[in-house]
């Protein structure tokens, strides 16, 4: 399978995404620069974490205006699977490929630790066949998902909340909400289900050395789906 990993100036998880695709999964991956318009025919597009353009303006705001995002939007409109991780999620909301916004953490501090998330909602290319609770690292300063009441109701009604912060046993409550996100939302998808944004980093726990390897499930799901379609 072919992964295109978008690289903005200041992206710092782009190498990690390429690494998981190539060294862990044994697939093909390449980086696409912010100023390129050709994704080079990938099966999946990954928008990695980091601090695009330094995040000196609103996180992801400048990245959403870069030339490569026109190509990503076209790929998404055509139904191509897109996964935005952390800063990539922020870029997707700023690009209006996903609704809502990521605000500063409720505790006003950067948080880096493991979080548990429950896989919820409708199947997506990255969650089809993935069930239960995953332990995934989070590392962000602006991860508090926010949307207006109507949007939240639509997301819930359409099964578009795909990850929710929870306890190790799947309990969803304030006690397990690291950043104050609305309804413990850690990740959502678009109406078509092909564009997914999430604050946790599945690529940081895709092999046992780095935790328990549970993050790999998302990439395996994409492999099953895209591999099967071919």
């Amino acid at each position, binding site marked *: 399978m072919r992964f295109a990993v978008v690289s903005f*100036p*200041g992206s*710092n*998880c782009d*190498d*990690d995404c390429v*690494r*998981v695709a190539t060294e862990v999964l044994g697939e093909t991956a390449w980086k696409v620069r912010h100023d390129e318009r050709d994704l080079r025919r990938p099966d999946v597009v990954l928008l990695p*974490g*980091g*601090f695009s*353009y*330094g*995040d*000196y303006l609103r996180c992801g705001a400048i990245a959403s205006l870069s030339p490569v995002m026109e190509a990503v939007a076209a790929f998404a409109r055509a139904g191509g699977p897109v996964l935005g991780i952390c800063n990539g999620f922020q870029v997707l909301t700023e690009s209006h490929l996903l609704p809502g916004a990521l605000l500063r953490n409720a505790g006003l*501090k*950067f*948080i*880096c*630790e493991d979080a548990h998330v429950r896989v919820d909602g409708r199947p997506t290319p990255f969650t089809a066949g993935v069930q239960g609770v995953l332990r995934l*690292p989070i*590392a962000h*300063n602006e991860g508090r998902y926010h949307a207006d009441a109507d949007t939240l109701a639509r997301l819930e009604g359409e099964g578009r909340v795909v990850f929710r912060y929870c306890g190790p046993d799947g309990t969803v409550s304030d006690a397990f909400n690291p950043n104050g996100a609305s309804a413990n939302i850690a990740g959502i998808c678009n109406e078509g289900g092909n564009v997914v944004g999430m604050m946790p*980093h599945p*690529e*940081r726990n*895709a092999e046992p*050395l*780095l935790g328990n390897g549970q993050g790999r499930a998302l990439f395996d799901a994409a492999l099953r789906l895209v591999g099967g379609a071919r």
Partner: protein
Amino acid sequence: MKPPYTPEIIRQHGLTADEYARVERLIGRAPTWPELGVFSVLWSEHCAYKSSRVHLRRLPTTGPKVIQGPGENAGVIDAGDGWAVVFKMESHNHPSYIEPYQGAATGVGGILRDVFTMGARPVALLDALRFGRPDHPKTPHLVEGVVHGIGGYGNCVGVPTVGGDAMFDASYDGNILVNAMAVGVARADRIFLGRAEGVGNPVFYVGSKTGRDGIHGATMASEEFGEDSESRRPTVQVGDPFTEKLLIEACLEVMGEDLLVGIQDMGAAGLTSSSCEMASRSGSGLHLKLEAVPVRESNMTPYELLLSESQERMLMVCERGREQRLIDIVTRWGLDVCEVGTVTDTGRFVCSWHGEVVVDVPVAALVDDAPKYERPMRAATTPPAVGEVPVPADLGATLVQLLARPSIASKRWIYRQYDHMVRTGTALRPGDGDAAVVRLPETRRGIAMSVGCNGRQCALDPRVGAALAVYEAAINVACVGARPTAITDCLNFASPERPEVMWQLSQAIDGIAEACRALDTPVVSGNVSLYNETEGRGIHPTPMIGMVGLMDDVATVRGAAFPSADLAVVLVGGAAPVLGGSEYLLLATGELAGPPPAFDAAQARATIETLLAAHADGLVLSAHDCSEGGLAVALAECCFGRDVGAAIAVVGEGRDDVMLFGEAQGRVVVATDRPDALLAVAAKHGVPAAILGRTGGDRLRVRCAERTLIDAPVAELRRGWATALEEMLR
């Protein structure tokens, strides 16, 4: 400004009357105003090591694993399979006290540049922090600012902050320590050096534009603080981690092709030190055209351009004819790149400003002829011996108190604010083991790292304290399963103009040298920070040690926490714990009294070898050394990680509190499923070892003969330990 200069002007440049006379003698005339500035920074303590250099020579700096020792931007060791590990630690103490966020942030930026300047991809950061006493009114503000600054820079630049330590002591009330260590990896045959060679080769300026920030930062860092230190804020630089990230990528891409002769970052003393150091190492000269330097402020003078410490800037010497490729790569990363001069064979540092020569002095006068002092030394008075300490009636309550001391308590509040997982190589995260471990990219190998130093032990006996700091860093690395290989150091001391302080520095260097020789861990890089003193009150001598260890298979890494129930708990190492300099003594009496624990070089070496042999045989399931707070604190910490209790029986005839809370280096709590084999390995190496008990349950029970010393639920012990830092900042 033109000569003659008033004594006041000369003093403001950090030069003594004698030093100024030396400048005039060396160049045969009075210096121009920019030349005076150049001498001022290059002859500062910070740049010239003028008080420490004669002593630093005594450190062991060579060994079979050493590829590059001190003298370059960072040290380099051989990591096997053609890989090299590049690392250095540096202080940013003075700026961090004045402006904690930017001071700490630019400390991280500076040490990263030292490492990627060598051609290495930075893969890990560590920070050793020392703050004043927890209830000092300034401490919370300084802790918040420094931690925020380290996170703000390191997180953005995409290098994981994987480890470090933090201690609190009244001696740092007026002078905090922020020592940052960066570790990078490179191909061993692709190491770049700070050289300016090849007459006619062009010199390029790469990175951020130059502003007026940080002018005379190096001079400031070479003075003690007075009442006006707060007004020094303009001499602190401002960091831009986004530009640093671009600079890393641009430099590594440039270094991937054969374009460069040499490269050097513009750190302390900016353009001046980078160019002069490069020319000095190569015995060449440089001609800079200052009007070509990219600026971000108007009307900047040659003096300001030469002394600015604006961040995120590099100086590169390119091979003539290959400039365009260099320009193309750097421009693609959106950074400034300008030809600012050429390499000459005159041995002179020449700067012109729109055609007019404003600096023309021999490089040797600036670098080699900088003053070196054999400053007078006098042994510091021996601190008092430990006096009356009543044995506490409730040892369990004392343990709870000790665990909640900020120096001992969980540092989660700090490391939770640092991205410690980016680059997907962190095999042992902060808080999980005695050392941090990252994977050596593209291999199965691991790099283990530990930083630290107990300033109290050094205050009691600088020689022994420094040796113990090396030993503890080595033990930490061995606990996780790596072989201690080499160190970097950061020698933080008070004013060298006081004979007692010079003696402390000299003694500490001897202590480091002794321990490094015993453990085969040469010093490959380092930094000296003097004048950590405010209104005559100095810090504890704090020779911070950053140890790097190597392991063949990163998957065999071991943490500190007891992994499960029904394992034997073995204490490896037999040094006798003492109360001198201990955290317990400070808690009980508020006093610093000695003597500190002893350092036994032969036992240290044997203990490290025991641990490594036990790891090789798969006998170690967890390992944690006894440090501040002694055996009882170490046992409690082993219980915390996975909520596994233990039933322990200690054997001893001394006081119960000394047995539980006394400190000594080189005692390791190991969990194993084959205790007899572990005892045999220890016996073979001549190291005492004893079975203490077993893991299991949800309580920590410690008894001695028939007496119960401690019996408490693990959850209860953990409470204060987990929240102490947050409580302190509230």
